[in-house]
């Protein structure tokens, strides 16, 4: 199959060998789980339990609110200890409403299996079961999956792309899932094809995962609509738009979504979760997390209940010395965790504890205009120019130079010989842009209100004047009649 080479990209050291031969193992059930009500893009789910309630495994504990949201379920049985604010996996470490579950150790299911044959279901019914299971994009974007599956009915979709890129260094959770559960992943792909009424699926897997490629090819052999494609190992291949381009030669137009060019993209772990949820009726309660990095003693691919604190993972695997940096996700785009008390959520694919040597901290030097960032940018930006605009406070200039097209993939900062924190500048500017837009909207709203008030007062004045004139005229007429 013909592949398309997107521009730029970098080849960071993979470090996949640390965990790629570690089979997925179960993390022992923690005593307490901290399940945030917002683990997805969209509105937070609304808790339907109260502190003290007994809860069974798989029971709904917070329900989706509005069109873009996802439900949350109890990952194990026990008692609702509290519904409180707890730090979420976010660089700010700010707390979000979290349902705390005290495990009773029994891991008792709420109901019996509700097994169905997905291919007897209508697409709406499948999307309904995916929504009920609270499945979100498990590659990290955490977009509610059922919303995406429903796109097929509003937009003509031609291709389902399954993202098995896993281009971030250290992470091997998708690799292991494809090796060990290829049948379930392929089944999920078939269910999604059926649900979105698409004929063809392309599964893009980076060629640094030969075992996963072989396992997936074997599992997909019987299904001619599903093509397993080896794509070059080039960061950021796992970026949705870059993966679409590599496989189809199509660029998602700026400001549009993949659906606008007839493509639907899901992650391999999402396909796996879809198969389980649709076939058994059981919700998404756990996920595979790679625990790796130089500061981790026994590196693992762990199946972890949602809501398990990162500290439990680190305790299970062992930490050598003081990690220089603790990350959720990979080292290119992952977020720095302020501490290890944040929970694993549906989009957490890795917990990486890096040593100082791995982080390679380096004082920033002035830009020498070497242009490597220009060569590395997969979007075609001129990062050094963008940076100088952001640094000079020229937000409009930065927008004109393509700030909103930046993926924050970090390729530019990775290659910069001056060690300039380019991504930091761009993320800062994007934040400023959001604030500015909010203020602009607020100002506009205030202006509208003021204008309306002005108009209303004017109208009242006119009406008053008219009424007065009418009264005067009437009086005059009466006087005239009297005279």
């Amino acid at each position: 199959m013909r592949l398309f080479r997107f521009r730029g990209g970098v080849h960071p050291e993979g470090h996949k060998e640390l965990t790629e031969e570690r089979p997925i193992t179960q993390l022992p059930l923690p005593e307490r789980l901290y399940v945030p009500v917002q683990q997805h893009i969209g509105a937070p789910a609304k808790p339907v339990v109260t502190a003290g309630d007994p809860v069974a495994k798989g029971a709904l504990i917070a329900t989706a609110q509005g069109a873009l949201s996802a439900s949350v379920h109890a990952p194990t049985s026990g008692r609702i200890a509290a519904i409180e604010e707890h730090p979420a996996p976010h660089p700010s470490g700010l707390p979000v409403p979290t349902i705390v579950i005290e495990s009773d150790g029994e891991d008792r299911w709420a109901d019996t299996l509700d097994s169905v044959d997905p291919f007897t279901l209508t697409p709406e019914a499948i999307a309904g079961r995916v929504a009920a299971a609270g499945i979100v994009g498990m590659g990290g974007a955490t977009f509610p999956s059922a919303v995406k599956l429903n796109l097929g009915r509003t937009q003509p979709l031609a291709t389902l792309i399954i993202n098995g890129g896993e281009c971030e260094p250290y992470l091997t959770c998708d690799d292991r899932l494809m090796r060990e559960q290829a049948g379930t992943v392929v089944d999920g792909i078939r269910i999604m094809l059926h649900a979105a009424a698409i004929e063809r699926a392309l599964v893009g897997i980076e060629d640094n995962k030969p075992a996963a490629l072989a396992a997936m090819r074997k599992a997909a052999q019987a299904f001619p609509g599903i093509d397993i494609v080896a794509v070059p190992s080039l960061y950021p291949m796992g970026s949705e738009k870059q993966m679409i381009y590599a496989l189809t030669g199509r660029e998602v137009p700026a400001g549009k979504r993949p659906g606008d060019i007839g493509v639907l993209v899901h992650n391999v772990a999402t396909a796996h979760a879809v198969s389980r949820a649709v076939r058994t009726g059981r919700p998404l309660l756990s996920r595979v997390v790679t625990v790796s990095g130089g500061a981790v003693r026994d590196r693992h691919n762990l199946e972890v209940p949602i809501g398990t604190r990162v500290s439990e993972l680190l305790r299970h695997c062992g930490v050598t010395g003081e990690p220089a940096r603790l990350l959720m996700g990979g080292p290119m785009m992952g977020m720095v965790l302020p501490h290890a008390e944040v929970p694993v959520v549906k989009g957490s694919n890795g917990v990486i504890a890096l040593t100082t040597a791995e982080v390679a901290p380096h004082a920033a030097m002035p830009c020498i205009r070497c242009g490597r960032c220009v060569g590395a940018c997969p979007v075609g930006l001129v990062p050094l120019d963008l940076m100088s605009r952001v640094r000079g406070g020229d937000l409009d200039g930065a927008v004109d130079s393509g700030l909103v097209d930046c993926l924050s993939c970090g390729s530019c900062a990775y290659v910069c010989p001056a060690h300039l924190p380019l991504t930091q500048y761009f993320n800062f500017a994007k934040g400023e842009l959001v604030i500015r837009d909010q203020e602009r909207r607020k100002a506009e709203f205030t202006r509208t209100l003021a204008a309306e008030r002005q108009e209303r007062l004017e109208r009242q004045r006119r009406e008053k004047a008219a009424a007065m004139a009418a009264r005067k005229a009437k009086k005059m007429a009466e006087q005239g009649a009297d005279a």
Partner: protein
Amino acid sequence: MNSPAPIAGPHTHAPDSIAKVMFTVVLALLPATLFGIWQFGWPALFLFVITLLAALLAEAACLHIAGRPQKPFLLDGSALLTGWLLAMSLPPWAPWWIGVVGALFAIVVGKHVFGGLGQNPFNPAMLARVALLISFPVEMTLWVDPSPFMTGTGPDLIEGLAITLFGVKNIDAVSGATVLGHIKTEMTRGHDLGASLPALYDMQAAAVGNSSGSLGETSALLILGGGVFLILRRVITWHIPLAMLGTVALLAGGFHLADPLRYADPAVHLLTGALMLGAFFIATDLVTSPVTRLGQVIFGAGCGALVFVIRTWGGFPEGVGFAVLLMNAATPLIEHYTRPRIFGRSRSGAPREYPEPAERKEH
């Protein structure tokens, strides 16, 4: 656990730094430099060392005045490289003060007046070379024939020191002419290439570097080797050197075919003067050349065209310094018009459009 300040990724980095870039360039220059010093003897070695020391001292002084830390900027190799390139472009037996004045001019006026590392619009070494050429034409055109170490033809240690400190005594006895200078002089006397060229130019000697010229510019092959090394190490790309050399070769080839007695052939142009050094080490200066690939091709071609024009019709026999400086001035403009197309947008910046949904028909 320590909680570092919230920072964006990446949390890993390519094993690279500015110092690594600069010292790789120095390494690439080493063979041609050693050859030049060997070929021109003690005076060349003294001039080289003095120029480098002056550049480093000037850098230290500027950093001190600017209140910047000394260590990271002195050790980044940029001042060393500027001094190095300047020294390579000087006449090998030039007096010590030529090196000192040139290094001061390059570092102070060429670099720090604009704000230091990364801020200068013009290549500092070429700026200094051109300033010296205009200000001190006699000292800057003192060419000597090669008199390598260990052949007994050149000055010994004491004589060499005397040449560097007090200048050359019997100039006429040692001075020669460069190929390009010779062509220009003879042309003004009405002698065409058929008469003037064979006396001085030998293609093999020019390639190896066994001819008179600047301290580090004579060996085209060693410089070419260093340039290829830089491309392989990905410090520079092929775009600027190839465009520059290719343009000179094409123009020279065309004119040479039209009138072989008036215009020298491409080999003469490529192998003599500062062209090879300019194409791989001066025009490719990261700070002052465009950052976009297309921009680099335009920049290189512009340098090449200007070199040919100045050499052929200009007042100076050599034009690499002027050509590069003129194109340096055009760099912001070139960059503005050669920005890459943004993914998902057309060249005009509008979102791309597709007539039908993406579908793969072939297997």
